[in-house]
């Protein structure tokens, strides 16, 4: 498996407070890499830095061996970003939103229309294409937030808590979609604080807490590590793993 992104010694401070303490990891082609961590762990900060949009104070990030800043626009054009906060024009239709954002990735004419059709269909919003976003439910907006990130068929899809605040059905739809996108060849970087999601979709997991990476591995390997300390394999969950590592629960 080819390494797409390599992060080394990454540090980030807001004002004088350091919130990311020199972390390092890689993103490999074809994986669904999940970042799991409680509120304030530094998931969004890390992800925003990887997008090339947020500056950092130490360390390096490279894309296929080159610093992402050597050709920032070229690098950005390979990414699809689903921000944690909805980023949509409320007064425009779903279709206009997707068309606009996809056009910023250079899509034109038939390719633009095709990308838009694909994105709306994929997120189950085809029949709402002509509706304005401000008439959408929260779950539909979440789905559109994803559609706007995939119309240009990115190589690496970065999703920051894409399922926050939506019903189980919409969530299932999104998780299925993520797995399908991987099958179509996308690499996915996914953050969440729901361990159920991580268990369902991840091919690899990075657990973060307080600006540090505290564990890394597959669902199985992380649980196996915890098993030796805890009693039976059945009762071991990622929650247990997190509890053992930090002495606190993931949920608070």
């Amino acid at each position, binding site marked *: 498996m080819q390494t797409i992104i390599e992060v080394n010694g990454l540090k980030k401070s807001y004002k004088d407070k350091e919130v990311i303490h020199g972390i390092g990891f890689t993103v490999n082609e074809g994986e669904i890499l999940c970042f799991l961590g409680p509120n304030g762990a530094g998931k969004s900060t890390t992800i*925003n830095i990887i997008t090339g949009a947020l*500056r950092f104070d130490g360390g390096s990030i490279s894309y296929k061996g080159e610093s992402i800043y050597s050709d920032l*626009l070229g690098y950005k*054009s390979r990414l699809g970003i689903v921000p944690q906060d909805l980023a949509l024009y409320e007064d425009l239709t779903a279709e206009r939103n997707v068309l*606009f*954002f996809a056009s910023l*990735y250079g899509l034109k004419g038939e390719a633009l229309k095709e990308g838009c059709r694909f994105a709306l269909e994929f997120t189950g919003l085809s029949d709402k294409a002509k509706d304005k976003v401000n008439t959408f439910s929260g779950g539909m907006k979440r789905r559109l937030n994803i559609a706007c990130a995939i119309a240009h068929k990115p190589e690496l899809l970065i999703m920051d808590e894409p399922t926050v605040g939506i019903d189980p059905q919409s969530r299932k739809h999104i998780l299925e979609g993520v797995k399908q996108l991987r099958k179509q060849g996308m690499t996915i970087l996914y953050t969440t604080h729901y361990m159920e999601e991580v268990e369902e979709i991840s091919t690899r997991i990075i657990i973060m807490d307080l600006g540090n990476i505290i564990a890394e591995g597959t669902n199985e390997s992380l649980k196996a590590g915890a098993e030796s300390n805890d009693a039976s394999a059945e009762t071991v969950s990622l929650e247990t793993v997190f509890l053992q590592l930090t002495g606190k629960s993931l949920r608070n």
Partner: protein
Amino acid sequence: MYKFKQIFRLDLMNLLTNPMWVFYAIGFPLALILVLGFLMSGSYGHTVTSYDYYGVALMIFGIFNAATFSANSIMEERIKSPNMRIVYSPVRPFYIHFSKVLASFVFCTAAYSLVAVLLHITVGINYGGADWWAALAIMLAGNFFFASLGVTVCCLLKNEGITNNILSTLFALFAILGGLFFPIDGLGKAISAISWLSPAKWMLAACFRIIYDGDFTLLAPLIGGLALLSALSVLLGARFFRGEDYI
């Protein structure tokens, strides 16, 4: 260029489809000029009626407000998060803020041109007759400068509310000092001299000299000055603009 066109079109649509902005750019100056023109009609003569005076003076006040539109279009809460998505995408940062400048410029120019035409037709406000192009040129240069100023100050202060407060206070001062609400040349030599500190005074004097005396001497320095300030403001805007402020 394709990407810039997309962003520009969207920024312009965001202004045009906001009823509050449309009212503020068209209805407000129109009503203000008509009301003040009517109320003050006794205090002005027949060559320069009160309508003629306020039709030019308050239009200049409107030009100042181009800064309000542009400051809003770059930092307004409603479009801040979708703007963030533009920051993530592969477009030059310069496009993002320059598009707001250009969109506000076009929006204000369209709105004020409409107001001027309406006023000329209804109450016969004099914008220079055959020399109308000079008034238009001053408006274009003014709209562009103030649109760029709004974006630049907003990029510097990172806050639309504070930007609006500072700029509107400054503009009110400029307007009073420059005689936009009432002529102040009659208030004495000293005040008359001080009033030249206000850009409003320059714009007003340039317009009136062209319209009533056919005197174009102020036109070139005024437009040259505004062009220079615009270039400076756009450059500073590019320097202060940081995409990550949206995140």
